[in-house]
């Protein structure tokens, strides 16, 4: 469990939430579909693709000024100021020092960066893109003269030299090379996903030293899904027929999801919400299609264990709910009273609006924490250029006891052919105790 917290914290994206979206909107924005002309404009676009703002901006802070505190079991890692201020930021970095930081995790003074910075992914960046990013960070970002606080890690984790060994074993500093036979589109997608997008940071399982167990699509562990704190970062490998990974999604479904946080199947929750708000919703249609084509080219991971069998079929559950045949089935009854208004008896919700619960990766995740988080605290889609409505699910935590939420979650995880395990009241209590402070609640106020 420890390493889950570490990586959840390491990525830190979700901590920004709506604040991050607002700040990003105020920064020099890369207009999504306008062809970028100058190196600086292209750099702004690439910074979007890399979602640099997510980690390098504190809540309510200035864009790229760092200061986001990332708690880890080893101490607090604090993101740095990467604005062009010469003292507080990276204004004195030469182009080559900037490149070394991105690709090798080397600070200008030669010290190692903590691998919270995804330099093993950024190693794939082309020289041209490094130039563009450098132009943007030197000229297009507002300098902030305030230094971010130092990271405060305990011994031995404060010994940055030790990271050299980690780098030697795990980091791969080779530039991106398309695989033989890859189309231009798939190669472009691979470059974005494996490189700037650093998707593997969340979606690839970590190894014993917290390293990503694979850094490119040639290894079938790559993007095969990983736990991320409460959330499940799902398997993104989409080639072939079936329901594994993204097999059930078309390339257009994937592109639409990345552009808007919603599609005919699902809606974004958890850490991915701010990634869509700050990064992918600003990418061009061509780049999103390239990412989709690449994910659809990844062969499914080898079966590790026997697929879980469901006790139900979609039709059985729908018929039972439609008939309101819920005596002695408290979870089904709770579903009708709380969920069916939007997700319907079919569990399918409505395309683009209410996500389907049938086969949903969060619903079926081994760890139910993410789903419980959504039930208890609700969820809100980001407002994106193409789909501006920040559709939200209200919080039900004020209304459901731990026992009720467990019964409800157990029902949903076993309904319509789903195959998630039973959920206990203790699991609900644990998630409830660790919810972040809620900004809004739909709890009624009975005062008149």
């Amino acid at each position, binding site marked *: 469990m420890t390493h889950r917290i570490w990586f959840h914290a390491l990525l830190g994206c979700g901590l920004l939430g709506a604040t991050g979206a607002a700040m990003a*909107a105020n920064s020099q924005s890369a207009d999504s579909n306008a062809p970028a002309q100058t190196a600086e404009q292209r750099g702004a676009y690439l910074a979007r693709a890399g979602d640099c703002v997510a980690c390098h901006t504190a809540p309510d802070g200035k864009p790229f000024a760092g200061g986001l505190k990332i708690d880890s079991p080893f101490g607090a890692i604090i993101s740095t100021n990467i604005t062009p201020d010469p003292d507080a930021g990276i204004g004195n970095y030469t182009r080559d020092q900037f490149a070394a930081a991105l690709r090798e995790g080397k600070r200008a003074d030669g010290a190692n960066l903590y691998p919270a910075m995804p330099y093993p992914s950024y190693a794939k960046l082309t020289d041209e893109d490094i130039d563009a990013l450098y132009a943007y960070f030197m000229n297009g970002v507002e300098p902030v003269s305030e230094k971010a606080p130092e990271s405060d890690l305990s011994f031995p984790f404060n010994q940055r030299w030790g990271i050299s060994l980690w780098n030697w074993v795990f980091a791969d500093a080779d530039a991106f090379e398309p695989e033989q036979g890859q189309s231009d589109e798939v190669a472009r997608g691979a470059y974005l996903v494996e490189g700037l997008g650093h998707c593997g940071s969340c979606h690839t399982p970590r190894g014993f030293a917290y390293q990503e167990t694979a850094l490119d699509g040639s290894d079938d562990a790559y993007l095969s899904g990983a736990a991320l704190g409460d959330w499940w970062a799902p398997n993104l490998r989409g080639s072939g027929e079936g329901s594994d990974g993204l097999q059930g999604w078309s390339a257009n479904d994937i592109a639409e999801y990345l552009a808007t946080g919603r599609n005919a199947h699902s809606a974004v929750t958890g850490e991915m919400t701010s990634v869509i708000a700050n990064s992918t919703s600003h990418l061009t249609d061509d780049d999103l299609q390239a990412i989709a084509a690449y994910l659809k080219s990844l062969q499914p991971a080898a079966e590790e264990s026997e697929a879980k069998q469901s006790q139900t079929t979609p039709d059985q559950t729908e018929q039972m709910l439609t008939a309101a045949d819920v005596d002695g089935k408290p979870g089904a009854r709770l579903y009708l009273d*709380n969920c069916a*208004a*939007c997700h*319907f008896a079919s569990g399918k919700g*409505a*395309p*683009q*609006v*209410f996500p389907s619960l049938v086969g949903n990766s969060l619903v079926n995740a081994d760890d139910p924490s993410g789903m419980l988080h959504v039930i208890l605290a*609700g969820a*809100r889609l980001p*407002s994106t*250029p*193409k*789909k*501006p*409505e*920040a*559709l*939200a*699910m*209200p*919080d039900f935590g004020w*209304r459901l006891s731990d026992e009720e939420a467990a019964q409800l979650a157990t029902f949903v995880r076993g309904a319509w052919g789903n195959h998630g395990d039973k959920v206990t009241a203790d699991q609900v209590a644990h998630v409830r105790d660790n919810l972040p402070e809620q900004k*809004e*609640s*739909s*709890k*009624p106020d*009975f005062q*008149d």
Partner: protein
Amino acid sequence: MAKTNPHVDVVMIGLGWTSSIMGMELTDEGLSVLALERGPDQDTVPDFAYPKMADELTYGVRYQLMQRPAKSTLTVRHGIQDLAVPYRSLGSFLPGNGVGGAGTHWNGHTWRPQPNELRLKSYVEENFGADIIPDEMTIQDYGVTYDELEPHFDRFEKVAGISGKAGNLNGEIQEGGNPFEGWRSDDYPLPPMKRTLNDTLFRDMAASEGLHPFPLPAANASQAYTNPYGMQLAPCNYCGFCERYGCLNYSKSSPQTCVLGALKQRKNFAYRANCEVMKVNLASDGKTATGVTYIDENGDEVIQPADLVIMGAYSLHNVHLLLLSGIGKPYDPISGEGVVGKNYAYQMNGGATLYFKDKHFNPFIGAGANGETLNDFGVEQIDFGQEGFIGGSYFNAAMTNGQPIRNMPLPKGAPSWGAEWKQAVQETYGHTMTIGSHGSNMAYRDCYLDLDPNYTDDHGRPLMRMTFNWKDNDVRMTQFMKQKIDALSKALGPDDYKLSFKDFDSQYDVRPYQTTHNVGGAIMGSDPKSSVLNRYLQTWDVHNVFVMGASAFPQNLQYNPTGMVGGLTYWAAKAIREQYLPNPGPLVQA
């Protein structure tokens, strides 16, 4: 000492349907636009969220989403000799409060006017002679034609995601739609809602009587929908909490579900809630506005300079603000001179409640605009000369809700309390359906709005005074509809039914709810002597003030006003964008 805000290009008063639409149109032009909303900010989640919203006592009975009479109201009287007294307790009509305005708590009936309703005076004179118009009736033409508005009706229907069935596509009558509607360039963006038992009973009976039933055009989404702004509606689940409620399911078209998310993304748009505009400020020559003065959320007075003022408050508040700001000459019912406040009109409705011992209507499966309608007795279908009145109605058999406090129709003679009442409730609940008549209301010399000489609001401003009563012409109209509905009710063969229609002794009663379709008072037209606004909703006297909303209607349509209000807003926006901004000044020379 009032503080002064930085200048904006456009200030909009209120943030409901009209300001939301105008905000999109004017930010498209690159203008900086600020909306000032009197009430609180509100959105689907958390404010209208499930299951909180399904609370009839809080929202349906205690009007949680409506304006508070203690904060804002008007006085009412029947005639010009009477003393007006304040409307202290909401009843007859329910102006909204907060972001989204009445667009959050409506039912969603979305109609276009019949073409001749927009040129009613000319239509009557041409077809029946000017002498059938009673002396005291002050009806006028709108000054804009149906053909001119058609693209804008279409636009609003697509933005609002209306569910319905076209009856007249480019002049070709369509089976199953309203054959009496004006031509439309396109069908509704969504198919009609699902039919309930009351719908099918009414439809089959009406068809067998030779009438032309069709599904009510609904701002309740029959399917998931994405509108031209990328905003989304979810399929309606027929929960039965529409009117008086915000939609808990993203299914009812509203500024929140159809516009505001897209508008809020624009960096040249801003809005402030809990900011009540006191008046529009005029330059010393009185010919242009310089902005507005408002009271902010802390109770401080703020001056907001702006080049263009869009009045997008509720119709009654638009008129009140015009009167308080000294824009246009106030109307005098004795001399007939002046224009501001003239031609206030309402809606003449009636209906039947039908009881069927053996039928189960399941009224809790309902939606605000779920219903079967017919327009065979519409304004354009009636021979005014022969029938002796000017006006018309549409009929609807709607099943909006089964809320137990207010929707508990009981048979004639049932006691109102005790064991027998309980028994009557048991026998009746779920066994009734209604047929409503929703009709026009003409304008009259002594039905108008002005400033009250006695009562003031908590800012010390005079309250507005409404002078209104029912007139024989409109009672004759509704009595005609009563005969028709009586016959249709009998044809359905209920075990019992009762009729409720205004009669010649009926007085306007502010206590029972009737409708929130208050129109007129800042009417549009072709002549500055008889209208406040020109055909582009621009005030004749102050060219940089435009007034949106149903206050522009010279008399009321037979229909619910929102479709017309939406179309007029897009029409005015086009004129502002294409004509006014390149060359600010009066768009019509007086």
